[in-house]
């Protein structure tokens, strides 16, 4: 029984790591993506930096956080955010900028301001792309959240590492299987949401 409570605690920790990071991802990505729509140079800068963060191996990313931010839940979040923000920013940016030019032309021609074009045309049409990015980020975040256990963020990773260290296969699996299930259900939930948004109007 103690083990089960322990497991549920770890799952809750894992989910809060993932979703806190996702919320922070969105809060950072949204303004950056919108600014990128208006300033070409800025978009280049943002995409280059996030691409670089993405390129760093996740485990190395987690490791370099320690000298910079120490250990614990928050440094864990920092590592997850850095590792998982790229798909959101990239998809938001692509979704917002790849709007059919005829729509932008007719919208501007009828008297929409640049911000109104984002609010009424670019953003709603980018929802499917944004959700696809969100899904991808969520899965990556879940993956890194397993690793951040090693710097004391908690979560399912702790059970896995403890299991591995003590050669306890059952313990290892009781951490690994829920982590896999979380990844699969994140994929499922976001896929359904993405499909719902698309079917509202086929375009």
């Amino acid at each position, binding site marked *: 029984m103690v083990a089960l409570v322990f497991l549920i605690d770890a799952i809750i920790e894992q989910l809060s790591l993932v979703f806190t990071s996702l919320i922070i991802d969105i809060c950072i990505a949204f303004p950056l993506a919108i600014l990128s729509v208006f300033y070409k140079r800025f978009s280049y800068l943002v995409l280059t930096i996030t691409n670089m963060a993405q390129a760093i191996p996740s485990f190395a990313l987690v490791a370099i956080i320690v000298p910079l931010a120490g250990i614990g839940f928050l440094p864990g979040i920092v590592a997850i955010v850095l590792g998982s923000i790229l798909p959101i920013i990239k998809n938001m940016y692509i979704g917002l900028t790849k709007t059919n030019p005829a729509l932008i032309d007719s*919208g501007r021609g*009828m008297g929409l301001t640049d911000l109104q074009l984002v609010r009424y045309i670019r953003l709603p049409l980018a929802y499917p792309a944004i959700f696809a990015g969100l899904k991808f980020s969520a899965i990556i975040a879940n993956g890194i959240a397993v690793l951040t256990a090693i710097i004391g963020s908690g979560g399912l990773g702790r059970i896995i590492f403890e299991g591995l260290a003590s050669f306890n296969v059952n313990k290892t699996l009781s951490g690994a299987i829920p982590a896999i299930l979380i990844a699969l259900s994140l994929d499922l939930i976001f896929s359904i949401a993405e499909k719902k948004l698309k079917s509202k109007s086929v375009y």
Partner: protein
Amino acid sequence: MKFDHVTKIYKETKAVDDVSFDICKGELFVLLGSSGSGKTTTLRLINRLIDPDEGTIYLNGNDTKDMNPVELRRRMGYVIQQIGLFPHMTVKENIGIIPKLERWKEEDISKRTNELLNLVALPPDYFRSRYPHQLSGGQQQRVGLARALAMDPPLLLMDEPFGALDPLLRMQLQNEFLSIKRKLEKTIVFVTHDIEEAFTLADRIGVMHNGKILQIGTPSELLFNPVNEIVSKIIGSENKFKAIKFLQAKDVMIPMDKKYLLQENMTCQEAVNIMISNKIELSIVKESNGDIKQVILSDLLKNEDMRRSINDFGRKLVIVPPDENLSSIITLLKSSNEKLAIVMNQNEIQGLVMIDSVLINLV
């Protein structure tokens, strides 16, 4: 509206080169030219989607540079070939987006949407809540037109609006558009590369080539008096024959000179005297019953009793209204075996159409 020496440069080529012209209130002005002639650029200069490098564009006497571009655009309808309906919005939301941003009341937007959908022959109950992808190309373009008219703008800018439609549908929409235009009395600037479309719709046409306006004139002016080789090439002498579809009686008639008119019931002697002193061989007599007759000098001279009324010698002529098109005049004359038609506006003789000379001009 007035263009005053307007130039727009793209990478050292002049897309619009020192263009000056006026557009009168209420007219449909067509910019005609091949792709790359600068016609679309010229149109986009009007609503400031592009700003000129040199020159000034005036609207009702005010420099458009001093106006807020967003407010300016909301006072102009804008229709493009790709239509640009927003795919995630219903027909009603598409039409109502600017009114909504202008904080119209919801019921006013609904009312306006219904009015406009009726105007473009789309029953509102059936189409209001559809999405653009559920409409045919022609229906989409009608919604595009309705959306452009939402704010009841005095000026309408149209960039090849019917260009993407198949020929039959295009013709139908052109006709519908003409009848809508008559109802609305708006100033319209219309860009096209299609000569037939230009001639069907235009009050005046500006022919563009390499960023310059070569000639501005009515369809028949361009057809019969092109200023240079390029204009006649663009208008196309081989196309002249197609002109019988849109040239109207008033475009091809010879204005009536008073000296050809004789009083009815004149005696032959009087008529002969007048005709000889005016050096004419043929006269027109308008009878009180509304008939128009032609009297030929030699007929009168051959007759022996010079006291008879000229009415007896007249031959009845075909009468057409000034907006009758040339092809129906030809049909009419052919069926009555005549060569001359009188153009009458209500009760006034305006001129005559000599079909032989008209046809010679067309080939």
